C-alpha cells in the first residue's frame, strides 16, 4: 500500500538505521576484542588488526563504537516507545475528555516542556540515581509531553466527526471509541513524532553521557567517548570524529525516517485509505488540473509527489 519507490527519505533513513543495527549487533563479534580491555598500544591508527585504531589506553575503537551504537539505538528506541505510549494516552484522554481534565493534563505537560530537556534529565538522574534504567525513564519522561500535545489536536478534530458521534449514539463505550476510532485515525502524527523523538533521544543521550550522567564507565557511549578523547584531540582527531559521525548518522537516520513516514502516510500522496474529510485518494496531477480548471490557484507544495506518478496507481477507486 505504501509506495516506496519515490520515497527516498524513508528508504535512506531505514537503510542507515538497518546498517547501524547490523553493525551494533555484529561489530563486536567481527572485531573479536573485548571493548573494555586494552588490546593494543595507545593511539594506534587504523590497521589490519584494529580497523579503526585504538584509544588512549589501547582499546579497540571498532568494537567500542559498535557497543556505543548498541546503547544509542536501544536507548533512543525504548525511551521513545515508552514516551509514545504515555504521551499518546495523555493526548487521547485530554483531547477526548476535554474540559477540566484536558486543562489539567495539558498544563502538566507544559510544565515539563518548560524545563530544558538536559537539565530535566540531570535532575531526574540525581533523584533516581545512575544506571541504564533511570536513564531510559528520564528520557521517556522528556519525550512524553511532545506526544501528548501532538496527539491532542487531531483528537480534538476527530471527536466531533460524525462517525465518532454515531458510535456514541450507538452506545459504544468511550474507551473503546478512543482506541478503535480516534487512535487509528491519528497514527500519522504519532509515527512521525516517534521518529523525531528518537532522533532527539540520541542527542540527549549523547549530551548526558558527555556530561558523565549517561551510560556509565567503562561501557562506551558516543558522548563519553568524545568527552574522554577531548584531551587527545590534537594527537588523534579520529577519536572524536568517529563518535561524532555515529551521532550524526543516527540523528539523520531518525529524521529521514520521520520525513519518510510523513510522506508515505500523507493522504495527498495517494497512499492511504482516506484519512481526511471529504477527499478521496486521487491522482495529484488530475487534482491539480481539476482545481486549475475550476479557476482556483493551484497551491504550491501540496505534497512532494512527482507529477509522473503512474496514472493507474492513483485513480480514484470509485464504484
Amino acid at each position, binding site marked *: 500500500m505504501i509506495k516506496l519507490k519515490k520515497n527516498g527519505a524513508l528508504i535512506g533513513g531505514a537503510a542507515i538505521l538497518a546498517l547501524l543495527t547490523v553493525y551494533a549487533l555484529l561489530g563486536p563479534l567481527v572485531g573479536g576484542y573485548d571493548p573494555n580491555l586494552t588490546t593494543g598500544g595507545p593511539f594506534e591508527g587504523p590497521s589490519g588488526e584494529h580497523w579503526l585504531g585504538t584509544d588512549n589506553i589501547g582499546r579497540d575503537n571498532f568494537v567500542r563504537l559498535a557497543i556505543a551504537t548498541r546503547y544509542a539505538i536501544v536507548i533512543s528506541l525504548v525511551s521513545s516507545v515508552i514516551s509514545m505510549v504515555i504521551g499518546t494516552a495523555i493526548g487521547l484522554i485530554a483531547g477526548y475528555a476535554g474540559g477540566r481534565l484536558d486543562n489539567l493534563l495539558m498544563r502538566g505537560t507544559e510544565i515539563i516542556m518548560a524545563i530544558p530537556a538536559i537539565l530535566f534529565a540531570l535532575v531526574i538522574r540525581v533523584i533516581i540515581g545512575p544506571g541504564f534504567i533511570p536513564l531510559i525513564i528520564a528520557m521517556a519522561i522528556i519525550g512524553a509531553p511532545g506526544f501528548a500535545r501532538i496527539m491532542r489536536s487531531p483528537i480534538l478534530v476527530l471527536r466531533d*466527526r*460524525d*462517525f465518532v*458521534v*454515531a*458510535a*456514541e*449514539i*450507538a*452506545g*459504544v*463505550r468511550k474507551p473503546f471509541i478512543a482506541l478503535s*476510532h480516534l487512535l*487509528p*485515525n491519528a497514527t500519522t502524527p504519532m509515527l512521525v513524532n516517534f521518529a523525531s523523538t528518537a532522533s532527539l533521544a540520541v542527542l540527549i543521550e549523547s549530551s548526558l553521557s558527555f556530561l558523565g550522567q549517561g551510560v556509565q564507565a567503562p561501557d562506551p557511549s558516543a558522548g563519553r567517548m568524545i568527552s574522554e578523547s577531548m584531551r587527545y584531540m590534537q594527537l588523534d582527531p579520529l577519536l572524536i570524529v568517529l563518535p561524532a559521525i555515529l551521532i550524526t548518522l543516527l540523528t539523520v537516520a531518525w529524521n529521514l525516517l520521520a520525513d519518510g513516514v510523513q510522506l508515505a502516510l500523507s493522504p495527498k500522496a495517494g497512499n492511504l*485509505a*482516506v*484519512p481526511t*474529510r*471529504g477527499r*478521496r*485518494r486521487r491522482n495529484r496531477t488530475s487534482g491539480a488540473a481539476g482545481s486549475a480548471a475550476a479557476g482556483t490557484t493551484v497551491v504550491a507544495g501540496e505534497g512532494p509527489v512527482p507529477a509522473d506518478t503512474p496514472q493507474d496507481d492513483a485513480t480514484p*477507486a*470509485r*464504484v
Partner: protein
Amino acid sequence: MTLTDLEPTQRPEGASDALMMLNGIRQEFPAAGGRTVHALDGVTLEVQRGETLGIVGESGCGKSTLARAALLLRKPTAGEIRFGGQDALAMRGGRLRAHRRRAQMVFQDPNDSLDPRYKVLRSVMEPLLAAGVPRKEAKDKALAALEAVGAPDGAADRFPHEFSGGQRQRIAIARAIATEPELVVLDEPTSALDVSIQAQILNLLLELQESKKLTYMFISHNLAVIRHLSHRVAVMYLGRIVEVGPASQVLADPLHPYTAALLSAVPDPDAGKRERIILQGDPPSPTQRVPGCAFASRCWLATEQCRTEAPPLVRTDAAADSTGGHLVACHRPGEGQEALRLGLTPASSTTV
C-alpha cells in the same frame, strides 16, 4: 420529476400514541466573554409512533442541537425527555445502552459518518455489538440490513471510500436500521447528495418506514423534501418551535409569519408572478434572550406586544381545522398568509 411535484404524504389514521415527548428542553452553551448561547429555548415537542415529524428552520436555529438532545448525546440544561413513557434522562449505564439501540441517527454527510478505516460490515455491526448482540447474530443482522437498503453485492468487505455518495448514504442508513430502532433521526440525509440520488434515498426511507414501522424525525431546510416525507411539520426559529401541526395544514395555511415567509421562498415553476416575502435583517444573536417573540425583530406584523411578551405555543381559532393539532406561537396568527392571499403587499415583500 422534480421534488416539488411530489405529493404530501397523508398521515396514518389512528397514529396518536407518543413515542417520544420533549418537554421544555433548554440547551445552553457557554460562549466567549462569559455569555451564554441559548441553542434551545424551551422546546416542547411530541413525536408520535409511526409518523414522520419534519423539522424545518434556517441554519443555526437549533435543529441539529435538538436532534442531539433527542438522542441523549448531551444532557440538556433543563427539560424532560420521555421515550416510550420512560424518563430517558434518568437512564444510566446499562439501561442507557439498552435504550440506545431504540434510537439511531442518519447524518448529513455520508463521507463523514462512516469511519474510513472500518470495513462496511464492521461499521454496520458496531451498533449491534454495542447493544450486546452476539457477534454471529450481529453479522447476520448487519448483512440483512445492507440487503434491505440495496447496498451493492460484496459491499460488506469493502471500505467506505470505494463507494459513491449515494451508496455510502445507503450504508449509513443500513447502520441506523440494523438494531431495529423505533426512532430514526434523519439530519438532512439528502442535502449532501446529487439531486438525482436524493429521490432514490427518499424513496428508500419511505419504503423502510413502511416495512419496518419506523418513526422518523426528519430535519431539513428543504421544504419540498419535508412536504414529500412528513406527516407533521415543526418550524423552528432561534431555538424555539414557532409552529407545529399536520404537514398539509402547516404548509398550505401557515399561521406564523415566519412560516409564511419560508414558504414564499420556495420556487414554484407553475406560479406566475407572486408575492415573495423578503425578510429584512438577521436573526438576533442566540446569546441574548429576547423578552418577546424571537421573530419580532424581522416580522412586518410585529407590535409592541410581540416585542415584550413571548407568545405561547397554542391552538388558535385562525387555523383552518382548529381540532387538528395545529399549534402556533404568534400574537397575530394567520395574518401574514392572509395578507399575501389578499395581495396586500407587506412592507418588506417584493414581487418576483
